[in-house]
């Protein structure tokens, strides 16, 4: 199996390392041609406004949207969730989310970097035992459409699944716990 990792900007390397450790071939996706032979796609954390512009300049916006809309499994973390959302709050006026995940998400919903935090999460689908939640200038999901909530932190959903799309507002790729990636990979095969 080959899983693409959007590699325009951000923590794409960490995702690729986790996938490789799970025996999956990780392909860095920087241009439309790189999407041709991947079975799934990971949208990493990073700066969503930068990624948004690079989606356009790299001519990836349309092919990526078409691939995910037609059912390619997609695992989005942090900024990746912002890219997929139907509505972005506190975004830039020219920020154009792909509208593939029916949520309203607030950028930097927990505050600035000094408010970034770690907190244990209960995630039923990965089994018993806390999952280390790493939240870095994390977005907050403030309205939820059709997706299923897989984890909450306080009163906000932090992990969603909607069809073949998984969205986490935290960073499983930084947590040294690959259970969530394993679940995603299992769904792809």
């Amino acid at each position, binding site marked *: 199996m080959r899983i693409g990792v959007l590699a325009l*900007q*951000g923590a794409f390397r960490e995702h690729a390392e986790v996938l490789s450790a799970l025996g999956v071939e990780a392909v860095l996706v920087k241009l439309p041609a790189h999407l041709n032979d991947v079975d799934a796609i990971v949208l990493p954390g990073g700066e969503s406004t*930068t990624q948004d512009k690079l989606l356009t*300049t790299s001519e990836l916006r349309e092919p990526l949207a078409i691939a995910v809309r037609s059912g390619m499994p997609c695992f989005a973390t942090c900024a990746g969730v912002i890219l997929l959302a139907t509505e972005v709050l506190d975004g830039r006026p020219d920020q154009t989310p792909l509208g593939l995940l029916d949520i309203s998400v607030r950028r930097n919903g927990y505050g600035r970097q000094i408010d*970034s935090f770690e907190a244990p999460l209960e995630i039923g689908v990965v089994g018993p035992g806390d999952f280390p939640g790493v939240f870095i200038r994390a977005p907050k999901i403030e309205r939820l459409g059709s997706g299923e909530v897989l984890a909450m932190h*306080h009163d906000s959903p932090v992990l969603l699944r909607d069809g073949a799309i998984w969205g986490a507002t935290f960073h499983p790729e930084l947590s040294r716990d690959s259970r969530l990636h394993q679940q995603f990979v299992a769904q792809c095969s």
Partner: protein
Amino acid sequence: MTDAPATGTARVKRGLAEMLRGGVIMDVVDAAQAKIAEDAGACAVMALERVPSDIRRDGGIARMSDPAMIEAIQATVTIPVMAKCRIGHFAEAQVLQAMGVDYIDESEVLSPADEAYHVDKWAFTAPFVCGATNLGEALRRISEGACMIRSKGEAGTGNIIEAVRHLRSILGDIRAIRQASPEELFGWAKELRAPLDLVQEVAALGELPVPMFCAGGIATPADAALVMQLGAQAVFVGSGIFKSDDPSPRAKAIVEATTHYQDADIVLKVSKGLGDAMRGENNPQIRFEERGW
């Protein structure tokens, strides 16, 4: 979950640096420049009163910027805002943390405040980036709590040669350490004047334990592609953007070249018609890179 969230952990401090990988951090001196930088796709801005080339020209003591100016930039952009304190000036760092600066740069571009000690960066919730010219310096900064290293280069010159020298020195020593036997690592620690445990960690990882970015002298898209290919994970551009003829297109071009650094066709495409790069300086009187111990 009842557990209180943990802030200021090494993982979240290093984590923000990991989120900035593959991006361009741009020096800005006011809200208008910050807006141009964000519009161009900067992944963060560095707020400072004078870009390094002006600090060079003006002389005098360079200090932390006016907090009101940094606040104006924080109010203008939604991307992370970094700001600089003087080497060893922990009180300036405390002020920057109190105003919610996302990354503090303990920077050699400002006049050093302490000739022996850098800031104890473990004592802060806000993460720090520090400059380094060689591996020993990088590891000493990491031992003091730095969560990101930037190769220093020679800021404000528009000359990439120092950045290349520093990157090659740091990465070359890492390659050598990776091949070293366990007993040779004791010798490396002594030679580098760096803690043994960090030398051993570098040997095991084959890289620094924190992200390494490049700064100092980047003026063109090809400069960014050069340092990224050498092994930098992101770039800081200071005077190179706002001291050029036409900052906005140049900023956009450097952002694209940093993402597509291995693709010469794209670097070619974005390099065309950008106007004059910053003039630059060949033999600077002040050498910022020599500051830091």
